């Protein structure tokens, strides 16, 4: 594979993932921090896609199964992620319902769609809107951890609400599945190499776009 002449890789330099230093790739190891040197993350697309498929599969039980169960005076009530949001809306807690809806529904789906699309455009070698796609990647990387809110809420409710036979809350299978979705999509974002977005574009397109 040939790299554009105005890129670090085109000059035979590998940018260290650990410390940003540009070093000739033949060195194999960054002389400053010791990280392994690569011109591009090895098998970035394949690994990102594999992680994305895993996350998509995990997303199904995460939404279909109960995330927690409330046992109150002998009766027991399962609630799913979306069910929890609907319940909050019915109680009139709109701000909290919005937080949970954004963190648990919009962010994970948005992340999955964004990463699938980035992989698709890189695979097809789209030569346009490199800068916008790089920004999209940065946003995806930045917001990933915020989806964990619902898992923390379940943990706190379970830890706190232990009132014998009166009121007990138990975590459901979906809490683990959903934590899995968040972790795997974070790994997928880390594995995706945004430099691939810029590799196929011609020199004039790169400078126009930037």
């Amino acid at each position: 594979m040939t790299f554009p002449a105005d890129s670090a890789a085109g000059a035979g330099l590998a940018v260290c993932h650990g410390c940003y230093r540009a070093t000739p790739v033949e060195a194999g190891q960054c002389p400053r921090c010791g990280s392994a040197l690569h011109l591009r993350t090895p098998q970035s697309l394949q690994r990102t896609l594999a992680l994305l498929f895993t996350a998509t599969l995990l997303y199904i039980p995460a939404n279909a199964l109960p995330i927690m169960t409330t046992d109150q005076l002998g009766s027991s009530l399962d609630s799913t992620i979306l069910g929890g949001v609907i319940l909050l809306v019915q109680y009139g807690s709109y701000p909290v319902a919005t937080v949970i809806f954004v963190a648990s529904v919009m962010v994970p789906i948005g992340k999955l769609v964004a990463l699938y699309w980035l992989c698709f455009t890189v695979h097809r070698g789209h030569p346009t809107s490199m800068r916008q796609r790089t920004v999209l990647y940065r946003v995806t990387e930045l917001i990933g951890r915020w989806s964990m809110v619902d898992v923390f809420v379940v943990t706190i409710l379970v830890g706190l609400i232990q009132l014998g036979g009166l009121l007990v809350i138990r975590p459901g299978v979906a809490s683990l599945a959903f934590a899995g979705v968040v972790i795997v999509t974070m790994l997928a974002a880390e594995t995706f190499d945004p430099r691939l977005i810029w590799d196929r574009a011609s020199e004039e397109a790169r400078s126009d776009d930037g």
Partner: protein
Amino acid sequence: MGPAFGQLGCLHCDALVHVGALPGGLRACCPRCGHVLSSRPPDAVQRALAWATAALVLLVLALSFPFLELRRDGIENVMSLPSAAFTLFEDGYGGLALLVLAFVIGAPAALLAMLLLVLLPLRSRSAPPWLVPSARLLFSLNNWSMVEVFIIGVIVSLVKIASMASVVLGISFWSYVGFAISFTAAVASLDRADVWRRIEACQA
């Protein structure tokens, strides 16, 4: 103002960028894709060290006192951070307990230790053997501590519980909020390119 950074590579678009001396408080962005290459607050090391020390004290407090207290119909339940994890373990939800412990206490505590292990030598301009591995761990763990996400989780839980029972916020709750603020400030005042340049200067 420190010395010039020299040639840096942008990890987001692979542009080679010459970054000169950067006065404190300014940011250097990639001219092509806008990625922040270096953003150095004034007195980065001193500041980060001060915030990290505060965070360490507050974390110890947060682990030693009750976090939240629940009261309903004369029954009381006191939850501390370690006891919440222990309850989950006992009830057979070890996986969940481990995840939450790792993201909320483990990763931030490890990050804090790495911060101190890197900042103290940088301050005294020495290069002990653990300096480079600690700095590498510090920057790779960064994304995995979810202190501020946990705070939002606590607030949401409080709203959810408010209809079921009355909740008392414990010493540990306020300590954890303080810890979250100082920890985030400590991490935010560190700049990767700047820290590595300083490490290089210490080794020379």
